[in-house]
């Protein structure tokens, strides 16, 4: 682990919407193959942090560096480049409703990476098979279940060969019985060594996957450490308290 090089470095991110300050100086570094899990109460800034990292939301100050190169946030071209290399999975899937599962995956390959129709479809079929949807390629989002939609979204993002994957509560919008299929896909990705930052309320994902837990509250990273350090028996951390409350609500499901 010590030899792994740093992929992503985020420094001093600030973001506010009007008078409401969401991020108050957040910094983190992500090494190759590392999995960080972001937890904390709603409104704490988890989603905004993730959206700032691939600049879907432009931070007011702070820097984002990929492989040591600081991204110039004013330059649209550099922004598009950054977003290509940092994939994003959304809570609400955000599939393109007018396109089939296959077309959802091929469209960015064709428009952004200029793949031919044939090679884009070949790649898309491969990605959809990887998430267990090889037989659903011609269905439209409205014909898929929530879990299937999220898996298409994952295939769509992976087809772009991202170096880092950001997941914004990937299972929160799913019916309980559909959570498992998405978690299985995420765990398979982790096993392959994908570098990830994931916001989640799913305790099984925290203890099972995370090498590093970030507890975010009021726009700052309030605590961070390995799951053992923060969640080990007898620890009196805020992270621990927060996870206990989650378990009490039955949201944990581990």
């Amino acid at each position, binding site marked *: 682990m010590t030899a792994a090089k740093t992929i992503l470095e985020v420094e001093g991110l600030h973001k506010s919407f009007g008078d409401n300050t969401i991020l108050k100086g957040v910094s983190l570094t992500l090494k190759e193959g590392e999995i960080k899990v972001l937890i904390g109460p709603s409104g704490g800034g988890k989603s905004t942090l993730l959206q700032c990292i691939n600049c879907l939301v432009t931070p007011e100050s702070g820097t984002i560096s990929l492989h040591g190169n600081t991204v110039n946030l004013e330059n649209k071209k550099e922004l598009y480049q950054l977003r290509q290399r940092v994939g994003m999975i959304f809570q609400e899937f955000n599939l393109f409703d*007018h396109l089939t599962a296959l077309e959802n995956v091929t469209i960015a390959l064709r428009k*952004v990476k200029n793949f031919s129709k044939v090679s884009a479809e070949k790649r898309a079929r491969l990605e959809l098979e990887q998430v267990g949807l090889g037989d659903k390629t011609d269905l439209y989002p409205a014909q898929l279940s929530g879990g299937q939609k999220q898996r298409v979204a994952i295939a769509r993002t992976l087809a772009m060969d991202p170096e880092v994957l950001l997941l914004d509560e990937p299972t929160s919008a799913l019916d309980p019985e559909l959570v498992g299929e998405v978690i299985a896909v995420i765990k398979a990705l982790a096993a392959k060594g994908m570098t990830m930052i994931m916001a989640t309320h799913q305790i099984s994902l925290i203890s099972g996957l995370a090498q590093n837990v970030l507890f975010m509250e009021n726009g700052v990273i309030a605590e961070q450490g390995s799951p053992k350090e923060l969640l080990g028996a007898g620890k009196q951390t805020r992270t621990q308290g927060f996870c206990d409350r989650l378990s009490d609500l039955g949201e944990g499901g581990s």
Partner: protein
Amino acid sequence: MYASFAVIIDSFPYLIQGAFITAGIVVCAMLFGLVLGVCIAIGIIYGPRPLRYLLNLYLWIFRGVPVLVLLFLFYFGLLTYLGLNLSAFASVAIVLGLTTAAYQANIFKGAILSLPRGQFLAASSLGMSDIQAIKSILLPQALRMSIPAWSNEYSIILKDSALAFVIGAPEIMARTQFIASRTYQHLPLYITAGIIYFVLTWLGVRLLLQLEKSVRIPGYSDHGTNP
């Protein structure tokens, strides 16, 4: 009574030719309005502030001034002032196109804004540029949603096209008036003209309904939501 029928039968081919000219004016105006309307809608939503003001001013002018005034302004005013020579057909198609563009822009604006923002975010997160996301993700869906309102606009513009007779475009209304002034069979002739307009409206609206059905996204019900 016999004279009425005779006039209608004699003049029917002449009136039907007018119907084709009316249809030509309306199709040109609607397509021109479609292209311009989409551009205006995108400019108003995504453009920089000065452009937004300018486009909104356009909407106010073309929605606030009667078509007839615009038509006179263009045909007798602007063309003469510039020393240009344009046919009555082209002039009417342009003025109606400019007018319907203002209304269509609002149709498309509403449709684009009603799409979930997440799809635009997702497109951006995959590295698509704003223009690519608008072109490949937002517009195909917004245009589908706009068809019902667009068919309304079609039926309005079709009837507005009757104003073309005042500058002498040889469409239904002009031809009807011409024959009526010579035969004095006003009643049967204007009833015939009304029926032709009605049939044109009906045909166009049916066609658009068919289009709406054929491009409907599978899995969505008639109401545009998940079944």
